């Protein structure tokens, strides 16, 4: 919404062309395995966890913040949910506990940033480290096994032939889109990221906006963490590590400015898909995991360079 036609065109649509280009490339290289309906469902499933985290991350980045703790929260929530379910045998209690923990740590991040005025990078780097530690303490460093099959459904089951994790991702996308595009609150998120002083002067409650975006990020990380544990069938203590980088990459690939105030929800989804398609396509092409990381890094760099070049060109 914030991107006007005159200078945001490339930034906004360039990423779509990027995704289409990558898909065409792999479709030519591997028409029989890559370019099949079942593989696209697989890609969606593979991207769902990252996109859940990225959507939360996007709220934070729009306010010119950053949340490095999303992966750590996802890991802790998986463990807490699994642990609670194993201990009590109650699925819903387990899910509620996990989601509660996710929101709580999001709120803690938000309060540290909004009230203690600690820069978001430092604040969430610290909580990332602390949360990772808490997860290890809670699990004693051991994975949690023996989860009921009802729990497996979240990450592995289908609803009307559609994987449930894709449905969750779609719901989160729709909710984020509505909130950011259609509501008063969404406008406030963009404004605070764009100019915090002018937003304050316009009567926006800055602290409330800041705390809430981290809480939203915590909530979505929690959902992502539950899907992850469910998909693996066990809660690994370190399952979430590294997820923050993919989430941030998806947001930035999608054209959201790290300086805040500018971004497009659809872009984040596409950014998430670019990462997933790359992972999937390179695996199908039998490229070693080591090289995959290098290629992924280069593609992200290239994409961001192209969008900023396009933006400059379009501005002239």
């Amino acid at each position: 919404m914030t991107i006007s036609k005159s200078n945001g065109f490339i930034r906004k649509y360039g990423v779509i062309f990027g995704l289409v280009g990558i898909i065409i490339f792999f479709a030519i290289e591997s028409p029989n395995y890559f370019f099949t309906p079942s593989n696209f469902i697989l890609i969606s499933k593979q991207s769902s966890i990252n996109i859940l985290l990225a959507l939360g991350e996007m709220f934070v980045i729009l306010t010119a913040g950053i949340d490095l703790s999303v992966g750590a929260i996802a890991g802790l929530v998986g463990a807490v949910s699994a642990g609670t379910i194993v201990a009590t045998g109650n699925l819903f209690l387990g899910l509620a506990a996990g989601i509660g923990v996710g929101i709580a740590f999001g709120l803690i991040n938000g309060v540290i940033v909004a009230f203690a005025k600690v820069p978001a990078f430092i604040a969430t780097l610290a909580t990332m480290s602390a949360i990772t530690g808490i997860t290890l303490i809670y699990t004693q460093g051991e994975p949690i096994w023996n989860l009921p099959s009802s729990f497996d459904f979240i990450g592995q089951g289908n609803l009307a032939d559609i994987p449930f994790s894709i449905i969750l991702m779609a719901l989160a996308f729709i909710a984020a889109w509505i909130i950011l595009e259609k509501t008063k609150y969404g406008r406030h998120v963009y404004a605070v990221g764009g100019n915090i002083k002018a937003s304050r002067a316009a009567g926006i409650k800055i602290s409330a906006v800041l705390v809430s975006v981290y809480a939203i990020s915590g909530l979505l990380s929690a959902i992502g963490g539950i899907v992850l544990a469910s998909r693996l069938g066990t809660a690994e203590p370190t399952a979430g590590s590294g997820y923050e980088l993919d989430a941030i990459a998806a947001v930035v690939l999608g054209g959201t400015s790290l300086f805040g105030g500018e971004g497009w929800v659809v872009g984040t989804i596409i950014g998430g898909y670019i990462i997933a398609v790359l992972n999937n396509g390179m695996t199908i092409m039998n490229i070693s995991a080591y090289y995959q990381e290098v290629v992924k890094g280069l593609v992200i760099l290239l994409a961001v360079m192209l969008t900023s070049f396009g933006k400059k060109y379009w501005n002239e």
Partner: protein
Amino acid sequence: MDILKVEEIKKSFSGVNVLKNINLSIKSGELHAIVGENGAGKSTLMKIIAGELEPDSGKIYLNGKEVQFHSPLDAINSGIALIHQEFSLVPQLTVYENIFLGREISKRFLGINFVDRKEMKKEAQAVLKTFGIENIPVDSKIKDLSVANKQLTEIAKALSTNSKILIMDEPTAALTLRETEKLFSILTNLKSNGVTIIFISHRLEEIFQIADSVSILRNGELIATKQINEVSMEEIVSMMIGKSMSNRFPPKPSKKIGDKFFEARNLSSDSFKGINFSLRKGEILGIAGLVGCGNTQVGESIYGLRKFDGEIYFEGKKINISKPTDAIEHGIFLVPEDRHDLGLVLQLSVKENHSLPNLDLFSKVGFVSTSIEKKSVKDTISYLNTKVSSINQRVDNLSGGNQQKVVLGKWLVRSPKILILDEPTRGIDVGAKFEIYKFIYEQSSKGVGIILISSELAEVLNLSDRILVMSEGRITGELDPQSATQEDILRLAVKGKES
């Protein structure tokens, strides 16, 4: 002898023709004024001459030779300096660092060039001194300066380049009479040293005071270039806006000023002391003073943007204001002085900026109603005659005056009880000023109390029902605009300064 000539310059932004075939000659050693409505293309033309924008087509001749600038540095190296309307200073850096940005003075030590901060500070101090503004501390950060001091730093920065052609885009918009006079004596001095000056202003009196010739732009076209003694103010205005305008101020409405409903008692902070005043319903209270006198800070404090001591009484009760939302709840609004700092979110569109403080009015259960929103934006735009290519245009692509109209316009939607206007017409053209004055009268006739902070004395004298003058953070007197003159204001404005 023409030192600078532009020929058939065309420029468009995303399909909108902003400059249509401009031909302009500037004589060596003259002070050439450029005037025109907001959005006429003045700043765009200047940026092209100073190498910041490239024209779509057209030629630029310097001393008869064609030149092509691909960057501002090219222009600076050819002796052209531009003083921006929207400042080009780096907020996190200090005054002296900004003055020497890109031209840092260095000293060699062990074969390596190190920046010589001591020398830079000394030089910066000297530059400020020639300008008589040595009271700006050279090592304070730009973001901590007032708008006027930012403007003065921007001017000092350009002066320190020793350019042959100095382009000034609305340098006086944020200055009071005193600084303006100082600036003019410097300009006269520069002129006698052979510097050519291009000068943009919406304050037409200034142009008659110092310009040798004037060019009028309208809608991207050059309407005329005249020697200043060949034209009258009325002719310039009618060439600018395409119709004649007999009065600069609308007729004073016959209104009844109501009861006292607001009182500030003994307000003080680090920028003002012992401020006592009251405001009546429907009254326009002017607060005048020189740059740095503290009137802006008083206004911002009442709106909750700054910490202060003292008491505020409103509608018979003592009220507590510690943040803008408190003031807004009581119906007290502020149109801030610095539009880039406090007024606008530059990445957002005209529509989104307009809506920012008004979303509660435009939304139902938290959802923004686009139809109500659009109508409100469009009404405001047509009321203030704001020039935008669409309501979704980003505000940082608007001309300076049109940005100001967006800032002002967003508060027109609400029904305020008190409106604090801090330089409401900064950078606004004569036609639009008239509309804003009419709006101020309309509001005050409805019973809104208005606090008008302005550096334009004519504005304060014409609009106010009562004038307070501040100097060095204190109120130094109260004047009745019926009988007061500009000199009276100035006398109070420097009181306590000489000693």
